[in-house]
């Protein structure tokens, strides 16, 4: 089943076209990667899908709801983790978890149970009363992700979630993402780390506001005769530039 369906999505900022007729769909339970250089329009797409920004035109359904009319229902069914770090530094680990859980309307008992479970899984029981500003960045990032899926959304949107994180933590972070899909959560992730694309089930490569190609990492590598996703990306990006020159 398609959990996200996008047809002819166009987003303009004045005369600048950020998204130029995008058409794609995301299957339930997959890790769907959105790749592209900075300014390629990845974040814009994500913001539209989350209801943070209105599209200029196009048909867009998220979790079965219309992006134009049913924004509130969409918001209830998604989780979101932004590029910038999104926990409150002057609240404790536990307070951050409970705050977001409360915002998503979870019941108190459920919150307490799941909080204990989560802290145990993350091995953070001992620091649950520490302020976020006092714990290491890698931990914060993992916690931010856990908070984004704490209310068990159907889809979680991750906007460049691993920016500024060391390779080991990035690895662990992707393990957490895989765990989440086992719980049936669909993951929509943007990144500009090409090695991370390998972890995705399917990858969309965006160049200058358009979808340059969309497939599984393996098929993309075969198609472009490339060793890794980085080469795939470079070939696609170069093609776009050549096209501009003509």
């Amino acid at each position, binding site marked *: 089943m398609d959990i996200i369906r996008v047809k002819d999505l166009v987003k303009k900022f004045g005369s600048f076209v950020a998204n130029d007729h995008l058409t794609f769909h995301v299957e339930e339970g997959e890790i769907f990667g959105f790749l592209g250089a900075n300014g390629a329009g990845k974040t814009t797409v994500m913001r539209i899908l*989350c*209801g*943070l*920004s*209105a599209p200029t035109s196009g048909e867009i359904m998220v979790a079965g709801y219309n992006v134009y009319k049913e924004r*509130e229902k969409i*918001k*209830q069914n*998604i989780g*979101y*983790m*932004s*590029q*910038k*770090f*999104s*926990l*409150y*530094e*002057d*609240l404790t680990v536990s*307070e951050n978890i*409970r*705050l*977001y859980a*409360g*915002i*998503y*309307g979870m019941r108190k008992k459920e919150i307490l149970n799941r909080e204990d479970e989560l802290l145990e899984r993350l091995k953070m029981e001992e620091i649950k009363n520490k302020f976020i500003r006092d714990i290491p960045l890698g931990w914060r990032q993992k916690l931010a992700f856990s908070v*984004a899926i704490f209310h068990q959304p159907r889809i979680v*949107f991750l906007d460049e979630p691993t920016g500024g994180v060391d390779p080991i933590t990035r690895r662990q972070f992707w393990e957490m993402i895989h765990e989440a899909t086992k719980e049936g959560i669909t993951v929509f992730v943007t990144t500009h780390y090409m090695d991370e694309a390998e972890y995705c089930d399917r990858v969309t490569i965006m160049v200058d506001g358009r979808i340059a190609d969309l497939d599984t990492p393996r098929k993309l590598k075969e198609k472009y005769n490339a060793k890794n996703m980085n080469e795939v990306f470079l070939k696609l990006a170069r093609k776009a530039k050549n096209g501009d020159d003509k």
Partner: protein
Amino acid sequence: MKRFLGFVRKEFRHIFRDPRTLGILFGLPVVMIVLFGYVVSSDVKDIRIAILDHSKDPTSREIVRKITSSGYFIYAGDLQSEKEIAEVFESGEAKIVLMFGQDFETRIKTESTASIRLVADASDANSAQLAVNYAQAIISSYFLSKSEEISLPWQINVKSRMMYNEELSGVYMVVPGLMALILILISALMTSVTIAREKEFGTMEPLLASPLKAIEIILGKVTPYVLLSFVNAVTIILLGVFVFHVPLVGSIALLLAESMLYITLSLSIGVFISAVSNTQQSAMMISMFGLMLPTILISGFIFPIENMPTILQWFSALMPVRWFIIIIKGIMLKGTGLAFVWKETLILLGMTLFFILMAVRRFKTRLE
């Protein structure tokens, strides 16, 4: 509702965990009111006065005694000639010189006119003006008391009375003005900074992507400041009344209701400012230069509006503070009711609606 309350609780935590915020919220108002209350009082005491008495008769001596024993002046010596006036001013020995002409007493009795001259060092114009006023008041009250003994052919007595502030106490002026200033400062500045902070730290996006509605986010951010600003308003009124003895003649309920309206207005300005700025820094700058300075300079708090160029008077009409000062002065000092301040109240109400609409529109266009 539960999710909203949870959000408000978070906001309180932000406030109570940040010493700087707490300092601005609770320290600043008290410090400001005490400083302004004691320092900006326009009363001048212990002015050094020198005497140049060419007649040295009983009447002139008595006037000198009256003046030097009034509490406002300190006797700074006798001068022998007019040349010495400049000297005492330059050396700072005296700020004002009282001069009696030749045959002072005789001329009063025979010609029914005699001259006293007051020469003041006006390099400090305000205190010079005040010193002259005090001296004049003392001299004329002396002649008033003498008018029965010395029968003059005719006499005009001007009796002046300063209503609502008989002693012309500066504090009466300062407390309402400060209240207006502090409330707008705290409400507008703090809310604009706290909302801008969410944007700057990237915590606003997850909130907007959550089921919380934009209006719930704004109200959630504003609610704690409504309560705290109200506490501040009450504190300032109490300080004014019990420490500085500013009268509170009018209805307390009306005063609090008007304060609440003004707080709401200030908060909506704060929300509006935060909607147009993306960082705490810019929110702070806009609040400071867009609100604080005009509030102090052209709202009529310190400088009289009537003396401003016409353009500035128009600008001053755009300042919420100006209208609020009229309202609270009316209620506190004169005891006026709503019947006399409804116009100002309506203006504040209109401004509040305007800023709420603008803020909501800005917030929406950001989303589109």
